[in-house]
């Protein structure tokens, strides 16, 4: 299942997309922080994380293909952390499985959930929305410009990678397994110089075009409406509740 990077942005159709872009970003930050701060070791914390992710998916409604892909990619990336448990158990004499699993589980849960929130949030923001959001929030202009450029260039980089991979596949297809392996092993040596050359050219273009020229020019940000303020308040209240849960759990 392949998802194009530039088609992720702004692809969601949930109610959250009706909020002003800066509010979407603030709510996303609250959901992200809630997943990070919820106590992963307690049942209540896990339930909170599950609720936040589910609610966030419903509010954002990213395309099903994207949601499924994000969930699977998250599992592929973070479930292997659980395999560290036997090693941790062996290091701690007398330690039980629950102790050994605590740290890998926390990493896996937080990593997976923040990834879901991050991708669903990206789906609610087109690159233009993201720029509007960053303009409106107290983010230094240069930081915003660099962030936008990273996102912009990631799409180019992924397209370049796909072209290289396609060329390698086509050229290796005629040969046998050995030829395919040889071609596959040469991917980094082909990819890195090309990416480095592209980075140099983009840097030259940025210098020539005066980007960001000290600060990216401000864009016309829309005014906040009542439901934007309400959503912000709810998101912050939710985050405050999660922080309280964490503090109470620690007490």
């Amino acid at each position: 299942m392949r998802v194009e990077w530039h088609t992720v942005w702004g692809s969601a159709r949930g109610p959250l997309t009706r909020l002003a872009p800066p509010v979407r970003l603030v709510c996303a930050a609250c959901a992200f922080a809630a997943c990070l701060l919820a106590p992963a070791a307690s049942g209540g914390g896990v339930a909170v994380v599950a609720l936040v992710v589910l609610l966030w998916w419903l509010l954002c409604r990213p395309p099903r293909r994207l949601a499924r892909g994000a969930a699977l990619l998250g599992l592929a990336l973070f479930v292997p952390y659980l395999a560290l448990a036997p090693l941790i158990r062996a290091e701690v004499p007398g330690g039980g499985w629950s102790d050994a699993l605590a740290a890998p589980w926390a990493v896996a849960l937080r990593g997976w959930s923040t990834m879901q929130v991050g991708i669903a949030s990206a789906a609610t923001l087109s690159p233009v929305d993201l720029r509007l959001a960053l303009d409106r929030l107290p983010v230094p202009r240069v930081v915003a410009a660099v962030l936008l450029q990273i996102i912009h260039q990631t799409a180019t980089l992924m397209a370049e990678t796909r072209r290289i991979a396609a060329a390698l596949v086509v050229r290796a297809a005629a040969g046998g397994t050995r030829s395919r392996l040889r071609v596959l092993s040469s991917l980094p040596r082909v990819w890195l110089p090309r990416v480095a050359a592209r980075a140099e050219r983009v840097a030259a273009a940025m210098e020539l075009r005066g980007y960001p020229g000290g600060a990216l020019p401000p864009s016309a940000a829309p005014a906040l409406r009542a439901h934007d303020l309400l959503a912000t308040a709810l998101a912050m209240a939710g985050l405050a509740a999660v922080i309280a849960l964490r503090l109470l759990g620690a007490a």
Partner: protein
Amino acid sequence: MTAEVLACRDLSVSWEPGRPPTLDGVALSLAAGERVALVGLNGSGKTTLLMALVGLVPHRGEIRICGERLSRRSAPRLRRQVGFLFNVPEDQLLLPTVIEDVALGLVRDGAAPPAAAERALATLARLGVAHLAAEPVHHLSHGQKLRVALAGALVAEPPLLLLDEPTAGLDPPGRGALSELLAGLDAAQLIATHDLELAERLCSRVLLLEGGTLGRDELGPSAIRTSWGADRGRPEPAAGAGLDSGGLE
């Protein structure tokens, strides 16, 4: 006497010590409104020369833009006098949507965003791509990216245009339209190209870059075709930019 918009003397670029320089003592000048073609085989240093002329590659020698010497300090200001089209147009598209990208130079120089957007739209219309204004740049084809990048170079109406393979990847009607558009501009133009027909139609002079030098200045396109030989002399203007060095030569 016509004012010189661009002049360089003894311009040399060397990428690796111990190897022959890519550019060796190049001298050229462009008068206001003059259109000059820069031709040469792949790897002859055309892209490097264009990049060096705006101080984007380390070089030796003197470069003057609009009469002022290019230096580290003056470069940011002088570059505003130059519209530059990169060999790979995708590299110079820096903002998410077409209209924002084209308007960047104007807004950077202090124009109000609505006025900048209006001018950007007019420039896109001149290039026949006004309908793409709201499109994300990643949705465009190579030819469309080239037109958008060109619009970004033209929008501020700079007195000097440095264009690297402006017709590469364009369809024949697009090449014709671009040629007409460039012919109608007041800016001085230095056009690196393999498209000798474009050079013939558009430019008053053709410079041949060979062995790092502009050794045989003022040749006509037919003489260059002969010099390149029948089998390799016919360039392929419709071929993608990737056939060339793809960037810094």
